[in-house]
């Protein structure tokens, strides 16, 4: 790899632009998609690798290319700078998520409580959520327990392509939440996207344990289907 190509690759990553590195095997000729001009078929494979977020080998005109997608980090938007958020933020960062915590209550949303790895928004949750624009690589978790804060965030998030939406609260709390959101005009299909009570049922009690159960469910949402078809039910061996 030339230092110039590495610089371009790192610049794209720093700017959070999705790019794919194409390497011809075995001689190591390289190109960057979509910045460099590629044969159409190769460009289509590179775009597909980025969508699937999975590296692949393709053979084209007698040449083998290794296509290595580099997508921007997955995002996690947490509504509520509460105790569980304090446990969730560093764990999510370790998993490679870019984390934003939304909480208009200034006393809660401080770097002192959440650490420096996180972006903090003090806007009202619907405004913050609209500005953040959850996409198909974004997970959203609401933790405030307070309908005034959680609901406006959900009204935006549920209409977005976010791949995971989880809400803290008991079954009873959730039933009331569904009633309110229905009244607010959300469809049943949109409401079905909510994971509640949030997290896998592993009997979590403490804040870090609840954070683990939430992140496990997020990982399952993202990887679960792929792991069952491609690798069998067992998770990746370490």
């Amino acid at each position: 790899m030339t230092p110039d190509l590495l610089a371009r690759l790192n610049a794209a990553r720093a700017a959070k632009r999705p790019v794919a590195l194409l390497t011809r095997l075995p001689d190591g000729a390289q190109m960057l998609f979509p910045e460099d001009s590629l044969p159409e078929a190769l460009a289509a494979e590179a775009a597909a690798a980025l969508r699937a977020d999975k590296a692949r080998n393709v053979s084209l005109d007698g040449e083998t290319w290794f296509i290595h997608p580099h997508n921007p980090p997955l995002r996690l938007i947490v509504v509520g700078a509460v105790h569980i958020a304090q446990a969730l933020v560093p764990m999510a960062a370790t998993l490679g998520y870019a984390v934003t915590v939304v909480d208009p209550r200034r006393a809660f949303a401080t770097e002192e409580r959440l650490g420096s790895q996180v972006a903090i928004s003090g806007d009202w949750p619907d405004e913050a959520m609209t500005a953040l624009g959850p996409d198909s690589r974004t997970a959203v978790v609401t933790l405030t327990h307070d309908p005034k804060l959680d609901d406006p965030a959900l009204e935006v998030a549920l209409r977005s392509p976010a791949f995971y939406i989880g809400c803290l609260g008991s079954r009873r709390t959730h039933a009331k939440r569904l009633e309110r959101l229905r009244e607010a005009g959300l469809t049943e299909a949109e409401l079905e996207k909510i994971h509640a009570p949030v997290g896998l049922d592993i009997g979590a009690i403490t804040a870090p344990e609840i954070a683990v159960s939430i992140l496990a469910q997020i990982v399952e949402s993202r990887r679960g289907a792929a792991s069952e078809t491609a690798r069998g039910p067992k998770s990746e061996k370490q």
Partner: protein
Amino acid sequence: MSAESEDILATAAAWRAAGEDVAIATVVETWGSSPRPAGSRLVVTASGRMEGSVSGGCIEGAVADVARQTMQNGTPQLLDFGISDDRAWEVGLACGGKLKVFVEKLG
């Protein structure tokens, strides 16, 4: 393809900027129960620094040896490791997986 690979690439650039000879090894294909997915990277320097991984620690030493050759002669190499390969036994890919690793010089 998470933050991990980004950090490794940033490290590679930083080491090179600091005047080190650097090589990048990338898992390009796997079969069976390989420990690290395609796209996993290991970055090594001539001075012996190392970051990232291409296996669960089984073949990093062998890959680093090849990386040093690649740094000297500039020729990229495509390495095969697998259960059917004597070399895999030698370097201890005990998981029974098979993988291909591409090693290239940064330069």
